[in-house]
């Protein structure tokens, strides 16, 4: 019996390891190609380890396109979208969970029903509205429409229910204002909730292609996904540079991911895993 289960385990480890090779192969191929000389890229048979490491491919990316601009734009947009989203969804989530005011259920329902409207359904009129604000090619146009709060509010509200009423009452008796209570008492005990919403928002904003594609015309305002996608459409595509640019886009995400695996996995599946 024991032996049989050992054999089974052996097979499982073997299958999972083979799967892992397939899982990592595309990423390995990306890194490998990013370091190759042009004549090596489609050489037969393909080589995983380049003859010499062409780190200059990475520098070339910055010559071909305004990559440093894309990078800065992506950082500005992602950070602001994330920070604003976390602040306002935590406040709204707290209000919906813990403050009694007329119309509360109605407003919550309003937010909730907006979850039913995917971005793709409203993108065309949304673009026209942003045009009428004069926000094309601006950070405001990139950032504000990307802040979708419904999911975050829904999640935060669930978390906020766990804050004991007694603490809030005690703070109130001590003369603390609602905002002060929120900031000094609620926020410190809700850090996991904030992290969940932050990571979810960070990831979708960093990866967002469609909205920045619509709302930016000038190269200087592009974010990384848009810059990368249009990079490819250039004739005589230079695959080594494209892959080098891809690596540079992926690296910040991977670093975050490695240091915060648990929060990442919880953040990206937060709405889905029922606990």
């Amino acid at each position, binding site marked *: 019996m024991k032996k049989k289960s050992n054999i089974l385990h052996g097979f499982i480890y073997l299958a999972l390891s083979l799967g892992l090779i397939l899982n990592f192969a595309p990423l390995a191929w990306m890194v490998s190609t990013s370091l190759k000389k042009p004549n090596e890229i489609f050489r037969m048979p393909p080589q995983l380890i380049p003859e010499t490491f062409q780190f200059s491919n990475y520098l070339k990316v910055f010559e071909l396109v305004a990559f440093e601009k894309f990078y800065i734009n992506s950082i500005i947009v992602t950070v602001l979208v994330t920070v604003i989203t976390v602040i306002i969804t935590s406040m709204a989530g707290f209000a919906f969970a813990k403050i009694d005011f007329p119309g509360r259920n109605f407003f919550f329902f309003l937010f909730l029903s907006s979850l039913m409207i995917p971005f793709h359904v409203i993108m065309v*009129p949304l673009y026209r509205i942003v045009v009428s604000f004069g926000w094309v090619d601006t950070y405001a146009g990139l950032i504000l429409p990307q802040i979708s709060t419904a999911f975050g509010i829904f999640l935060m509200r669930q978390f906020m229910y766990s804050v004991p009423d007694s603490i809030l009452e005690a703070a109130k008796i001590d003369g603390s204002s609602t905002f002060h209570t929120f900031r000094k008492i609620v926020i410190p005990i809700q850090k996991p909730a904030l992290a969940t919403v932050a990571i979810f928002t960070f990831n979708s904003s960093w990866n967002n292609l469609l909205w920045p594609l619509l709302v930016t015309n000038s190269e200087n305002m592009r974010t990384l996904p848009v810059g990368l996608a249009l990079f490819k459409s250039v004739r005589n595509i230079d695959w080594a540079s494209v892959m080098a640019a891809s690596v540079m886009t992926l690296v910040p995400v991977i670093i975050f991911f490695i240091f915060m695996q648990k929060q990442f996995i919880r953040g990206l599946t937060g709405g889905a895993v029922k606990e």
Partner: protein
Amino acid sequence: MMSFRNLDYIGKGKSMNKQGVLKRARKGIAGYLFILFPLALLLTFNIIPMLFGFGMSFTEWNGIQPAKFIGLDNYKKIFTNDSVFNTAFLNTIKFSITSVVGGITIAFILAILIDRITRFQAFFRVSYFLPVVTPMVVVALIWTLIYQDKGLLNYILSIVGLDSVGWLTDRKIAMYSVVVTSIWQGMGFSMIIFLAALQGIPNHLYEAAKMDGANFFQQVRHVTIPGLKNTFAFLAVYGTIGGFQVFDQIYVMTGGGPVNSTQTIVYWIYSNFKQLNLGYSSALSYVFFMILLIISIIQLKIFQKNNY
């Protein structure tokens, strides 16, 4: 009136006492302030576009000249006179079904395998999740490279002695190439959901099955799969709705081609928008919304039936 009860602005359920609405509003003023900013964003960037788009869908408008009201013509055209929409609709269904079935199957197999092992469990979980955090544009670019005529995949075929395949240029194949890419990117997500759900299956069911002499596959068949029924349903619906919104991969890998063989609904909305058919693309958006709504209603029915 100085009792503790009235000190509290806190209340979980409905207001419990007979205070007037005004008094409650005054006490709950912080509530309004706390939701003010997201509410403003919701109005400006969700609700108003939704209404505006509805109006636009009855017009012919290129965004420069004044919009012309044309009644239901856009909708008529979508259903009777737009063969590309037809193709896009069918392609979108094809994409959703194949990517959902393929993705869930692989994710399920990975999950039950990882669930069985004791060492390196975390390592495998994290490794298989890695593509999920990879930006779709990056994923699409990598796979475009792999799918090139002289790319990695055709080389592998040549080793086995097979002819090269036009992964992204053959119209019978291009959509499936995009599907494979999408499965690779998304399966880690489903795997994590499965792994979480697997914790919920009571161990004694497995013990009982073992007692009856059930082997590994029989246990999976008779204990695991029935136990994960709701998870399968959830992932199928979630994946289908996500699949219907496919855009990034198409934009980067094929641009809807060759000959519309990878044209999808969202890509067709985008193309019309780019050609400044704003009224028409709004009508397409509304049809798209209705399609998603129908899927959501089916979802609700499935979940209700399963007491989810």
